[in-house]
């Protein structure tokens, strides 16, 4: 037992320099805010630069027309690139999201063993793979086999890039769901698979959506793997088995041209790409997370990203 004398002695050890501690508190607060400001500066300046340089190119024609001939006065658009990027995102999600989520469920719910640990390790390795290697790989196994660059090949490569991101974020979100909800489900005599899909997965929904959005944002800007898989095109899509254009590829092509109009169009295309990712992000969050009420929605959209 601690005696009264000891307790008095212990009390003497506490510091009573409140003034100094309040100053330290303030310094830390200012430092933290300063770091936040520093982190926001690049984002804000990129947005500013892209917008001011590209705004001149923006027009309805720019969004809907095919690119003009290189070096001519004909001002074209980036219609095929927008179409191609949307098609690639859609198809990649169709392949990557279900596999990624199921893989994440496996890692979280059934992966607590040697096999699970192995899968987790190689999944993490895949997440760090240079994407150009994935492009070359897809070129060898799909483009050469089919005999042409295609939307399929591009989506395949992009879905491989999505997979590890979605798997890992799904796993982490599922693990955050308290065990008490699972137990409540089991106690109701619900099968494990149903507990996982209908109770745990819905409870982890916002984390899952965030993971998918991270993956979408990541693949929307990928350029290297597309060179080997969709090649690029100045025409609208003719089918899923032919080459198409994509915004990152178009930005790259336009910005490497020596003409001012092309440079401006490149900035414009970059602005459109950023806005597209932004719009998809907000749209998906609105659709999947709206049931929680407006105030919660705002929180989830702007503050609740893990």
């Amino acid at each position, binding site marked *: 037992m601690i005696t009264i004398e000891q307790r008095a002695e212990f009390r003497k050890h506490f510091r009573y320099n409140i003034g100094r501690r309040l100053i330290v508190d303030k310094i830390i607060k200012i430092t933290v805010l300063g770091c936040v400001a520093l982190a926001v500066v690049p984002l804000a300046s990129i947005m500013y630069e892209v917008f001011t340089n590209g705004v001149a190119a923006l027009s309805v024609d720019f969004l809907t027309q095919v690119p003009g001939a290189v070096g001519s006065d004909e001002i074209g658009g980036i219609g095929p690139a927008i179409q191609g990027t949307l098609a690639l995102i859609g198809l990649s999600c169709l392949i990557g999201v279900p596999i990624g989520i199921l893989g994440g469920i496996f890692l979280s719910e059934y992966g*607590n063993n040697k096999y699970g640990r192995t899968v987790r390790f190689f999944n993490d390795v895949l997440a760090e793979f240079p994407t150009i290697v994935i492009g070359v790989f897809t070129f060898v196994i799909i483009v050469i086999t089919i005999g042409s660059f295609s939307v399929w090949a591009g989506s395949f490569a992009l879905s491989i890039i999505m997979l590890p991101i979605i798997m890992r974020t799904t796993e982490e979100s599922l693990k955050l769901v*308290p065990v*008490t*909800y699972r*137990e*409540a*489900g*089991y*106690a*109701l*005599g*619900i*099968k494990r698979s*149903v*507990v996982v899909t*209908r*109770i745990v997965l*819905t*409870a982890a*929904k916002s984390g899952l959506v965030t993971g998918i959005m991270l993956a979408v944002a990541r693949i929307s800007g990928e350029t290297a793997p597309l060179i080997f898989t969709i090649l690029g095109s100045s025409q609208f899509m003719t089918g899923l088995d032919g080459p198409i254009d994509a915004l990152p590829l178009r930005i790259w092509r336009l910005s490497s041209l020596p003409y001012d109009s092309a440079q401006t169009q490149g900035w414009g295309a970059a602005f459109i790409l950023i806005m597209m990712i932004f719009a998809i992000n907000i749209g998906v969050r609105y659709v999947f997370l709206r049931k*929680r009420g407006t105030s919660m929605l705002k929180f989830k959209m702007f503050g609740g990203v893990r």
Partner: protein
Amino acid sequence: MMMETMKTPVANVSSVDKGRYKLVAENIIASYDDIVAVKNISMKFKDKAVTALIGPSGCGKTTFLRCLNRMHELTKNAKVTGKVLLDGEDLYSNAVDPIINRRKIGMVFQKPNPFPTMSIYDNVAAGLKLNGINKKNVIDEIVEGCLKMVYLWDEVKNDLKKPGMSLSGGQQQRLCIARALAIQPEVLLMDEPASALDPIATQKIEEMITELKKEYAIIIVTHNMQQATRVSDYTGFMYLGDLVEFGETKQIFENPRNEITAKYVQGQFG
């Protein structure tokens, strides 16, 4: 040690007429890793009666309760041996799927745990919908009936679409009890259902237990000895993983046969 000289009064269950009891636990030994939390407990639970399990923290009450609906084995590295007979049928025999049994034995947890993404209505309906019942009129009827049984209906009938999480702690716990009742169990296990609640909410839960007793065999783990005397007909006192004494609540509290039981119910240790 003192414990070695003690005998559990109901050790020999097999000789008893099983038909008289709703649930019979025989020689339950439960462990986590190498730690034995429940040491060979046998106990019989009557239908339409409340049996309380009391004892100091860490004595294995909750673990034993979780063995009764095969929830214990879901914990990592947990092991159970023994038999639990529901109407004479062993829940631990391989012939029966644990899922079917958990539907017959409802469980209420210490902390209210309504499903976070579901509305009040969906929380009660979860055990029905996710077990394949899809007739809306049947679900409606059960949801209303169960919410009435836990005296929550009048408080929430206009807010059934609101999230279950929007309710107060006491209401959430009654919601969880309604959810457990919705799957039409025959036995109700309650793990300190009122320990996280204030006295008024506790009183409501206790009144409800007394009412539910008319239809169910209820087994309740509690730290609160007054609660045990108020709601239960039978009481088992557990200590260090053993069932020290088991009998009618009145007898356990007023005339305990065992020295340790006497000390515990008098509040000399806890």
